[in-house]
């Protein structure tokens, strides 16, 4: 069934989509700058951001965003270029599919996914960059650095969620229904009553 869309609606749709992606990448850029500033331990804010974008957008956009966020994470964390890109691309694709098939776009679901994904990212980082080399007292790195960064990331994800929600509320184009769809939806609602 073809959707009824006027040329104006097409234009608005395209404009809003472009503006939304510009906002996403502006947020990514700001997060990158934030992560590179100063000497204190900071949240890996690009992880919740990539996941939040993946939840609300198509799979290709999610994958590319995951890769971009991963590369930026690699640059600012001084990791092997592409290491985090692979991890985040995988996460974004997985999250996009999971949210499309099984989960609803709710804050609690986003938080659960972010907690799990950021923990895995921190744990892999610890495994490959510290534990594998057998430094003395290496467990301290996990306790004092990895866990701290993970907790910061989880806390920061609340703000990331709110920011993304704001962007989506303003710029996410709404689905338009055909007359037939609208009538059917109305009938179904009436029947339920």
């Amino acid at each position, binding site marked *: 069934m073809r959707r009824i869309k006027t040329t104006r609606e097409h234009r608005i749709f395209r404009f809003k989509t472009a503006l939304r992606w510009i906002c996403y990448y502006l947020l990514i850029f700001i997060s990158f700058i934030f*992560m590179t500033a100063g000497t204190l331990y900071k949240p890996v804010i690009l992880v919740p951001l990539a996941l939040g974008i993946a939840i609300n957008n198509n799979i290709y956009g999610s994958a590319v965003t995951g890769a971009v966020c991963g590369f930026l994470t690699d640059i600012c964390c001084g990791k092997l270029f592409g290491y985090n890109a692979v991890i985040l691309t995988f996460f974004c694709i997985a999250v996009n599919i999971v949210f499309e098939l099984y989960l609803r776009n709710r804050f609690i679901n986003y938080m659960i996914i972010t907690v799990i994904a950021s923990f895995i990212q921190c744990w892999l980082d610890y495994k490959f960059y510290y534990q594998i080399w057998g430094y003395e007292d290496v467990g301290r790195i996990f306790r004092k650095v990895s866990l701290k960064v993970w907790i910061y990331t989880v806390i920061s994800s609340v703000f990331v969620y709110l920011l993304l929600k704001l962007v989506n509320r303003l710029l996410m184009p709404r689905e338009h229904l055909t007359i037939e769809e609208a009538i059917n939806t109305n009938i179904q609602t009436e029947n339920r009553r």
Partner: protein
Amino acid sequence: MRDFIKSTRFKILLAFLAFLVGIMIYSVTKGGYSVSGASFINTVTKPFRAASNRISMSMEGTVDKLSNADKYYEENERLKKQIGELNAQLTEYDAMKAEVEELRKFVSIKEEHEDYMLSQPCGVLGYVTNDPFKSFTIDKGSADGILVNCPVVTAEGLVGITVEVSEHVSTVRTILSPDLSVAAVASSSNADQGIIEGSITASENSRTRLIHVPKKNKLKRGDLMITAGSSGLFPKDYPIGTILDIGFDSNGLSVCADIQPCVDVTRLTSVIVITDFSGKKEEEKDEED
């Protein structure tokens, strides 16, 4: 007319006129200001005159503002611009002053060690995010003659070594890292050798460790450790840090010590890279060729 001249009114007016002329003549003799009547009038009218003058000035000011608004606006803009320029100059001056101070320190390195080939002063772009060993990136790279494994220093002491070099950016591994080992010797005795190598626990307090020191040594708290220069990676006799605590290794076979680096590697703004020095490992030069 004749009647008027003969009248009392005329005589009174004439007398009054004569009185005024008299006052005038009296005023002339007194300089015009000390006449008590005038003074009295001045005193009485002073507040009124002041008030009227204020109103008048205010009105004149308003009229002046209105009539010369464009002129004042232009003047204001010009002055604002001038202030902006002066502020910019001041900022530039402060920055240059700081730069000169730093350059002066770096010049002292060259003066003390004539064999060193130094890079231009390198600005610290930023620290590697969440790195417990405080690696950082600098704004100079291979285009500026920097290679991998070049010592990175400040005037105070050794900072680390370059590990990743791109055209315009390099990453520096600091002496807090367990991945960097530097042969060191005590400056006082020039005999007690050991290896300076970072550790996870020491790096939490921005310190490093001296390990593999023979049991028989004369090291004591406060001794300055300098580079031994035996590896060919670091120049000889460059300060690294001072000894804080001395103890035995976990195996009890050798002595180890906590070292407070001469440089606070967590607060760096600029460093310098030693691109060449006498005694540098030859393989590096061969690799370059």
